[in-house]
């Protein structure tokens, strides 16, 4: 694994191993994520991609070996949209339970415009489609000031234009000195280097 890069990493993992149900999902993975890097975690279904992300963000605390250092604030977007159907997209973002930032109304509106939800700001979220609900969740990326993004299948249920917009956003974030670690089954089309962490290859 490439670990040599200048400066202190934004996220570092040392000799991570995970055994689930008697099967080693990955063994002795070490890597460091630095500012300006985009990492893609690859592997077939059941390879432990989501488990690795949950270990990295701190949701999984037990059952694995190794150490994770998180010197920088993180934004984790999981499989679930974390969107409340009874709240409007605006309320969902303004009162988000992740407690990261306080946003002005204009910030939320422009984020929702950028994920293509203009005109849907004040309708109950349960009337939105699954893809639109995921877009509400993705709007958090436009609002976030966290340097490290951990994204679990961000392209799932997103249409083609949405994927292109998201890839542009990832590029911008990386260019601005952020770091992205994501899982995806499709190739990411970005104008920057994509480092690949292949979980299938880590188990000897």
């Amino acid at each position, binding site marked *: 694994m490439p670990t040599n890069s200048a400066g202190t990493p934004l996220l570092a993992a040392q000799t991570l191993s995970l055994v689930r149900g008697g099967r080693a999902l990955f063994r002795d993975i070490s890597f460091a994520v630095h500012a300006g890097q985009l990492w893609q975690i690859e592997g077939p279904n059941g390879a432990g991609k989501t488990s690795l992300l949950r270990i990295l*963000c*701190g*949701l*999984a*605390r*037990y*059952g694995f070996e190794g150490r994770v250092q998180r010197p920088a*604030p*993180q934004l*984790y977007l*999981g*499989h*679930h*949209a*974390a*969107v*409340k*159907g*009874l*709240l409007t997209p605006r*309320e969902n973002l303004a*009162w*988000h*339970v*992740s*407690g*990261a*930032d*306080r*946003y002005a109304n204009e910030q939320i509106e422009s984020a929702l415009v950028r994920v293509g939800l203009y005109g849907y700001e004040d309708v109950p979220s349960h009337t939105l489609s699954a893809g639109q609900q995921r877009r509400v969740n993705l709007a958090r990326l436009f609002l976030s*000031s966290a340097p490290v993004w951990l994204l679990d299948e961000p392209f799932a249920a997103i249409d083609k234009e949405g994927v292109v917009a998201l890839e542009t956003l990832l590029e911008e974030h990386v260019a601005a000195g952020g770091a992205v670690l994501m899982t995806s089954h499709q190739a990411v089309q970005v104008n920057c280097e994509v480092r690949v962490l292949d979980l299938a290859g880590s188990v000897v």
Partner: protein
Amino acid sequence: MSAPGTFQFCARLLHRQLLLAVRRPIDIGNPLLFFVMVVALFPLGLGPAPEKLADFAPGVLWITALLSNLLTSDTLFRSDFDDGSLEQLLLAPQPLYLSVLAYMLAHWLTTGLLLAVVAPVFAVMLSLPMAALGILVTSLLLGTAVLSLLGGIGAALTVGLKRGGMLISLLILPLYMPVLIFGSAAVEAAVSGVPAGPYLAILGAMVCLAIALAPLAVAAGLRISIDA
């Protein structure tokens, strides 16, 4: 942009939970309807003789309030677990201790507080003496706060299970017992003209203890449930 302060964040969570409850009035109405229906069963089962009902009234009202609280405690973190909000709450930089306290305060405001408000009407129906009504409301206000906090522990531990309803009852009913004992004893005392203050003081002490310790257990329970 700056991260909201802890108390600001808690106020935001409280506002959010209350708004969610108001937008689903059935969730607020269910425990109250349950309370009304079960209390109405007792005159049918025990016979309408006022003296007999008055004898049983403190216990009946307290047991029914306890059960209707138990009915709702399972829902405390359920929807947040299902839609992934709970993961995000655990990752929030603010202390989880205070966040879950805000959740349980919202739960108490939408169940215990309302139960205490409607209880006097049904106490009159069970011919509980007027003199005991004030003590009934006070004991319910204090007692249901403890019940909401204890219910939160059960909810946190069982939120990862698909059908946690039965298990949560088995887990937290033993913890509800002291509340029931002192709650109904306070009302009994008021009925028989003995000072109810000592019982209320014990209930108050239980509230303090539960506020101090229950959020720790809830936070640990949620972390385990999310990790599993």
